[in-house]
């Protein structure tokens, strides 16, 4: 429990460090497995609502060029911090820019910062974690000692330091979050790999003459992927908050682009006169980050065959 930061994001106890591995036999998962998982997922209403909400936000952000009423970085009104009105559904910010348009365009960056670095970290962690957990010995030793050192840094601090070393921008945030996150997912992948490694079907595969690479890709990976994916999904919400925080500090997205963190920072100047400029992007960050947590919960139940049949 040393590096607690992402564990701290509301993760149910059993999604933490000690991964619960719901074993799926490598060959029978596939389309039928997916359909079963979807049926199980659909049953949990809050996860379903969260997923629909996320898809709607993602869709609206993707369509921003088509549906945003105004240019996000151009002033559309002379009335600074204009209230909500017809034509300006969510009002204007301190520089007279349309809040709704900025929200739509900003969503693209904020969502990307939540999803992309987490997926990259997941890929990296699968490689390192399986290598350490399956092949063990010195690779395990080296990897774990390095991770121990990284765990001495709180995640947010590490991300801030990395971000401050590079020139500010979206790429910097992506790299910073990816590097800061990898140790946490790696730890989970390693634990999961170790528990799969000892199971009889791996021994059976060995006995049947399967090569190490085949065993890793066909039998270990599918079983490790599920808990890792669940953990990563839950982390995405937390990373959205971290990414917004970096942007809020000016280490992330740079003007004229704006993500939701930048929008909150911009709102500070007119906090008293027009609180909606600050409140709206903050509420979006909370809702999306919560949705990721719920989707992660639903995925965990859906991907674990033992839970599914309960």
């Amino acid at each position, binding site marked *: 429990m040393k590096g607690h930061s992402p564990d*701290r994001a*509301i993760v149910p106890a059993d999604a933490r460090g000690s991964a619960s591995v719901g074993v799926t036999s490598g060959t029978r998962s596939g389309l039928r497995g997916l359909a079963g998982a979807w049926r199980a997922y659909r049953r949990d209403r809050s996860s379903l609502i969260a997923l629909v909400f996320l898809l709607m936000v993602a869709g609206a952000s993707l369509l921003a060029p088509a549906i945003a009423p105004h240019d996000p970085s151009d002033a559309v009104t002379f009335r600074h911090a204009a209230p909500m009105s017809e034509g300006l559904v969510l009002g204007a910010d301190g520089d007279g820019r349309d809040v709704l348009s900025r929200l739509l365009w900003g969503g693209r960056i904020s969502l990307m910062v939540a999803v992309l670095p987490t997926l990259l970290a997941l890929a990296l962690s699968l490689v390192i974690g399986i290598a350490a957990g399956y092949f063990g010995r010195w690779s395990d030793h080296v990897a774990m000692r390095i991770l121990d050192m990284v765990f001495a840094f709180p995640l947010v601090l590490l991300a801030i330091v990395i971000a401050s070393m590079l020139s500010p921008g979206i790429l910097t945030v992506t790299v910073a979050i990816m590097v800061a996150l990898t140790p946490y997912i790696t730890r989970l992948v390693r634990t999961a790999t170790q528990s799969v490694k000892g199971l009889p079907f791996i021994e059976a595969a060995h006995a049947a003459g399967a090569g190490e690479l085949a065993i890793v890709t066909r039998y270990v990976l599918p079983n490790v992927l599920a808990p890792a994916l669940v953990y990563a999904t839950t982390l995405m919400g937390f990373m959205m908050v971290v990414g917004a925080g970096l942007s809020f500090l000016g280490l992330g997205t740079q003007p004229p682009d704006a993500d939701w963190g930048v929008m909150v920072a911009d709102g500070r100047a007119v906090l*008293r006169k027009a609180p909606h400029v600050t409140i709206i992007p903050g509420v979006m960050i909370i809702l999306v980050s*919560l949705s990721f947590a719920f989707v992660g919960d639903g995925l965990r139940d859906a991907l674990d065959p033992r839970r599914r049949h309960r």
Partner: protein
Amino acid sequence: MGWFIAGRLLAAIPVLFGVSVVVFTLLHFAPGDVASVLAGPMASEAIKEAIRESLGLNRPLPVQFLKWLGNLLHGDFGTSLVYKRPVAEFIFEKFFNTALMAVSGALLACMIGITIGIFAASKAHSLFDRVTMAVTMVVGSTPLFWLGLILVLLFALTWRVFPATGMTSPVGGGGFLDVVRHLVLPAVAAAMPSAAIISRTARACMIETLGQNYIRVARAKGLRRNLILRKHAFRNALPPIATVCGLELAFLLTGVFFVEVVFAWPGLGNALYYAIIAHDIPTVQAAVLLIALSFVVINLAVDVLNAWLDPRIRVSTARQGGR
């Protein structure tokens, strides 16, 4: 117990060494040339070279690292490039300010979190339970910087109850009560997400403990509810709750980074923020080191506290150590 603590302390040494290596190398490769910052924009190449020579910047990297580490162990954090004075002169004061806020935030979070958790657990699945758990879920995913701004909006701008920024009033301030008044908003902002996490953990642990057989026996004996909750259930649910509280304190040391920036609290996070912007590498190194160091120390303390609260951990670790 003595062996347990000694073992943990020994294990912390390589970690701390690793931390210093990471801090040194990370910031060594940071952009911006120290010599040009110190010499100013008009300086000639010869002057910059002289500065590099005097600071030892042209030596091999391991040599620089050992010199830096040696200075560090003597309490010399280098000279701030912005303030032009030794970092050690001001960094500890900042650290104290941060600790003040982190500790008060953590205490607040523990009190609120544990109270809510116990109440929710004692009335599990009631309306109170469901509402508070929904609220903690939302608060737990709220960005600290946004929460800080909302508190400023409500309590400083709208109702004018507490000051919005700083640690003391500019005129006639500086007394104990003045600092407390300034501390309230940032401490509450820092405490809220932690309180949410702690209350969820406390609830889960209490519900688990309340389901045990000995609780049923206590009830059957006719003991009062409060007594059962306090003496029988809480004592046994305490170790995991204490762990979370400790981890939240560690988290707050970095979490306050955002809170300090929002409230202009003169702590380590604020110093780090401005040092990063100004490329003041020695200050950044000192701030990061201090935070990482306290992080390691708190984690260590949590381990020890846990072993003290829960004899089972102590025994199993001692047995492993004796192998």
